């Protein structure tokens, strides 16, 4: 019989079981009939003949069973039977089933979701050719993940052309093209464009999915190559994924670009979490940034990455770039634009960058690691829960196993059934876990800053499989352990329902697991408590200005073609229009909207060195000041206090006077306690100082809520662009949004408003990381506590059932119900107390790791360390109450009759 015939035979055996069985019966019957006839023929009576024939045939059932086995599908039949049995068991014990599935689902789901998140932001390598060969170039001692290092295009060319080690050097920028206008037929969208060198795709080893990618030929002459490569996601979204996309045009910042190709699916550039919609050549920088010219030496806006050939020594490469840098600096002259952090006199450093450049990593790195730790604790708790449940249940079934063994079942058969049941449970739990991980993954994505491309965070199959595997192993080991220990000599006791357990011991395996669970959830809860207090502290910090009823919106007329004085006229007209709106208290502009963080578009983060006239800075003293270009009535709009001197007035604005206000910290830094008003300051570390200080204001937060006071200088810039509009209203400011948009649109529809936000909203958003941490930590804490409570309940519950006889005897001998209650409670609370103490010790040790993330409290915060144990003790009490009551309500008659 060949394979095909055998398969047919097997399938028949599987699906036509009854028919085959009937046939077999009939065959046996006819056999017996014939034998009977033969016996009658040799002289027996009919009855005797049949009797002899039957006896001769033998034990029919056993023969039938052997024949059935020959069909070759009996293993499949038993499997189906076992699965059915397992499902029925789960249905009959819904409490056990629900708790086990929830525990498994939560453990697997949360762990998989968090790990996927961490993997994408921290761990995954770039989807390019040989990512391990990539390095990033930046200033020494700079944390690449927090402060990128920027260079100019001519420097790029210099390094690439004079140092053969860097023949594969790429330059890219997303910082400068802070959002680009894409004109659609019905409005304007803001899109992200990454400006890249011609060899970008070639060096990364990325080829086009449709059409072609950029080549060095597309990067020769300034403004002469209006071409773009579109990202896969943008291609799907904007062009419907159509194949004839090459040749389509898009209007970016007023300039027409032609699409020449589509990047492959999954390629997102070199910055995880910040996927651009388009890639354009550096030669088109002017068009895309509204002014920055690619050929100027002092325009530093590019980030460098290079591919080093295998075998190239990192030191040699560093030396090479240092040589090029020194050479370059020797020839450099001219003022630097305010945007670029200083690289002068700083040797350059190479850093391996197989995972790309990521600001997200810097912001989220530590919290994510801590999150991974926390979720692992939750996973341990959930596995312990499953272990406890399985141990309890298996012990309860020893009677069943005893009977089955006595009836002739092989131990292997029972073990096979147990394996099937446990696998079933774990797979069902895994299904729940998958659903939970997808849901949680989506939730996590919403916490990322708006610039992150959410498409990159799909659930990771590796993470999921791993957690599932661990759960399966846990389930199998604890589900099987008791049965493997069952020996035939203990059959009788097993059948009677006695278990050879050490029921007298308070700290047996189950209780040990329970205590571990409690301690782990204490750790989680303390973490949550610490983050809660941090968040509360951050929310109530004094910002230096009034955050209520303040609306911010950014505009960038320069990108839509305005130049010089026309920009100033635009701003004046806009401010006038808005001031007329009902409910508006005051309006102003600023180049930097406070608390916008590092990623926001439309905001200019300016940090440069300044000096005071006549005062030489001491060596090692910080000479960096933060600058904010504002319009008159800025301080009034923000609600800041004028501490001395006067505010800007229209006269200053119209005559472009060289005046400035400084905050307290800046005044102290410049003049060290001396009078600051009417003194002069200037840019740079030395040199002319023509800026006169006319007033001092209070310190206000600049970048984020946690910072120490930064020395800030406020100056006028009538023709600055982009600027952020600040509008303070008397009532709820959100109602003004549409009115303001209408006014701006009426003034010029080509200059859109973007990043429209209330200040209160922005403060909340800047606390995003803390909010994320707190929410997740508290979620994990609550889940962990819930699971630990269930574990405690289960362990104690089972122990009470086990000791029912003993309790019955005691009560029969005269013990009071209340003392039985107390006995059970005491047992449970001992376990809980041990767990809580262990947890407190562990938390005290681990809390130190969190120090960096906390604000305003010490890691061993007294309030948290007192409240959490109390909460957990109460939860434990509730969890122990029900089984304890059951112990108290044991009826001695029933208990003693149980035997």
């Amino acid at each position, binding site marked *: 019989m060949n394979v095909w015939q055998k398969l047919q*035979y097997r399938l028949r055996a599987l699906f036509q079981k009854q028919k085959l069985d009937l046939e077999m019966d009939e065959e046996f019957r006819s056999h017996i009939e014939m034998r009977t006839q033969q016996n009658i023929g040799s002289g027996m009576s009919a009855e005797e003949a049949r009797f002899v024939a039957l006896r001769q045939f033998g034990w029919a059932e056993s023969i039938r069973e*052997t*024949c059935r086995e020959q069909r070759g599908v009996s293993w499949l039949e038993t499997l189906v039977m076992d699965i059915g049995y397992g499902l029925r068991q789960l249905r009959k014990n819904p409490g056990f089933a629900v708790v086990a599935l929830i525990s498994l689902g939560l453990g697997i789901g949360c762990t998989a979701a968090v790990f996927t998140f961490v993997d994408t932001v921290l761990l995954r390598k770039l989807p390019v050719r040989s990512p391990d060969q990539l390095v990033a170039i930046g200033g020494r001692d700079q944390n690449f993940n927090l402060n990128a290092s920027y260079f100019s295009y001519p420097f790029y060319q210099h390094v690439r052309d004079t140092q053969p080690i860097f023949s594969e050097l790429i330059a890219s920028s997303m910082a400068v093209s802070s959002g680009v206008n894409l004109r659609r037929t019905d409005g304007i969208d803001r899109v992200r464009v990454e400006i890249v060198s011609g060899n970008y795709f070639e060096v990364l080893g990325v080829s086009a999915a449709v059409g072609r990618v950029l080549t060095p030929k597309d990067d020769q002459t300034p403004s002469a190559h209006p071409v773009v490569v579109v990202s896969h996601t943008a291609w799907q979204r904007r062009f419907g994924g159509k194949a004839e996309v090459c040749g389509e045009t898009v209007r970016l910042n007023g300039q027409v670009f032609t699409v020449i190709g589509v990047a492959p699916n999954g390629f997102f550039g070199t910055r995880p979490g910040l996927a651009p919609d388009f890639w354009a050549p550096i030669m088109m920088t002017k068009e895309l940034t509204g002014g920055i010219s690619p050929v100027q030496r002092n325009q530093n806006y590019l980030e460098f990455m290079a591919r080093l050939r295998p075998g190239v020594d990192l030191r040699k490469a560093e030396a090479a770039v240092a040589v090029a840098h020194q050479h370059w600096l020797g020839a450099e002259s001219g003022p630097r634009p305010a945007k670029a952090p200083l690289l002068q006199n700083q040797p350059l450093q190479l850093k391996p960058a197989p995972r790309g450049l990521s600001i997200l990593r810097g912001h989220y790195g530590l919290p994510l690691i801590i999150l991974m730790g926390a979720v692992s604790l939750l996973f341990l708790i959930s596995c312990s829960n499953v272990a406890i449940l399985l141990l309890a249940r298996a012990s309860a079934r020893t009677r069943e196993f005893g009977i089955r063994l006595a009836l002739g079942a092989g131990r292997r058969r029972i073990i096979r059934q147990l394996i099937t049941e446990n696998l079933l449970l774990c797979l069902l739990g895994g299904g729940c876990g998958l659903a939970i991980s997808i849901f949680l993954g989506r939730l996590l994505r919403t916490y990322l800053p708006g610039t992150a491309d959410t498409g990159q965070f799909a659930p990771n199959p590796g993470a999921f499989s791993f957690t599932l595997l661990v759960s399966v192993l846990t389930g199998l080991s604890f589900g099987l352990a008791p049965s493997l220990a069952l020996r035939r000599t203990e059959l009788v006791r097993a059948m009677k329902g006695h278990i050879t357990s050490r029921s007298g011991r308070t700290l047996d395996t189950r209780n040990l697991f329970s205590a571990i669970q409690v301690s782990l959830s204490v750790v989680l809860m303390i973490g949550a408590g610490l983050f809660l207090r941090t968040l509360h502290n951050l929310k109530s910090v004094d910002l230096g200005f009034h955050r209520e009823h303040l609306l911010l919106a950014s505009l960038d007329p320069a990108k839509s073609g305005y130049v010089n004085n026309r920009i100033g006229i635009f701003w004046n007209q806009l401010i006038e229009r808005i001031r007329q709106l009902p409910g508006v208290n005051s309006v102003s502009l600023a180049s930097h909207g406070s608390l916008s963080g590092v990623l926001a578009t439309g905001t200019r983060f300016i940090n440069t060195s300044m000096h005071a006239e006549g005062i030489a800075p001491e060596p090692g003293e910080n000479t960096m000041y933060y600058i904010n270009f504002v319009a008159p009535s800025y301080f009034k709009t923000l609600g800041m206090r004028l501490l001395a001197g006067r505010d800007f007035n229209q006269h200053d604005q119209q005559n472009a006077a060289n005046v400035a206000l400084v905050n307290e910290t800046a005044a102290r830094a410049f003049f060290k306690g001396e009078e600051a008003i009417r003194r002069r300051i200037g840019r740079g570390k030395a040199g002319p100082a023509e800026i006169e200080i006319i007033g001092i204001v209070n310190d206000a937060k600049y970048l984020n809520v946690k910072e120490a006071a930064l020395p800030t200088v406020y100056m006028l810039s009538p023709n600055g662009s982009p600027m952020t509009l600040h509008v303070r209203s008397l009532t709820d400011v959100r109602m003004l949004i549409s009115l303001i948009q209408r006014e701006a649109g009426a003034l010029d529809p080509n200059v859109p408003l973007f990043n429209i936000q209330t200040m209160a909203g922005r403060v909340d958003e800047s606390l995003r990381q803390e909010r994320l941490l707190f929410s997740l930590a508290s979620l994990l804490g609550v889940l962990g506590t819930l699971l630990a409570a269930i574990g405690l309940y289960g362990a104690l519950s089972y122990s009470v059932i086990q000791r029912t006889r003993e309790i019955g005897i005691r009560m029969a001998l005269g013990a009071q119900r209340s003392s039985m209650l107390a006995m059970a409670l005491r047992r449970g609370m001992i376990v809980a107390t041990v767990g809580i103490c262990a947890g407190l010790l562990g938390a005290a040790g681990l809390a130190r790791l969190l120090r960096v993330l906390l604000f305003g409290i010490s890691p061993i915060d007294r309030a948290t360390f007192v409240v959490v144990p109390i909460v957990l003790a109460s939860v434990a009490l509730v969890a122990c109450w029900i089984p304890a009551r059951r112990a108290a309500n044991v009826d001695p008659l029933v208990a003693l009759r149980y035997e």
Partner: protein
Amino acid sequence: MEKPDLLQGTLDMLILKVLSREATHGFGICQRIQHWSNDVLSVGEGSLYPALYRLQDNGWIESEWGQSENNRRAKYYQLTKAGRKQLEAESKGWDQMCLAIRQIMQTA
């Protein structure tokens, strides 16, 4: 007379041999084995039927329902081509083994 036990392998061979002469049902095979060995060997139903199913699974015999002598339905078995080959092979093997055993037993 003691009835020697039949090994599984030899039972298969005997069944194939019986069926090589003519197709018959299970009871018939029992009869013939007993008859042809002059009552020395008898097959228990407990061994016969599992063997028949096994042989069928291996593709050496095939079955078909038909009418028996006393007008009842009975399952008739017959040898397949592969079965015939198998019979030859086993027969040869058996001969060799018998020869070997006899040689050992005859050395003084």
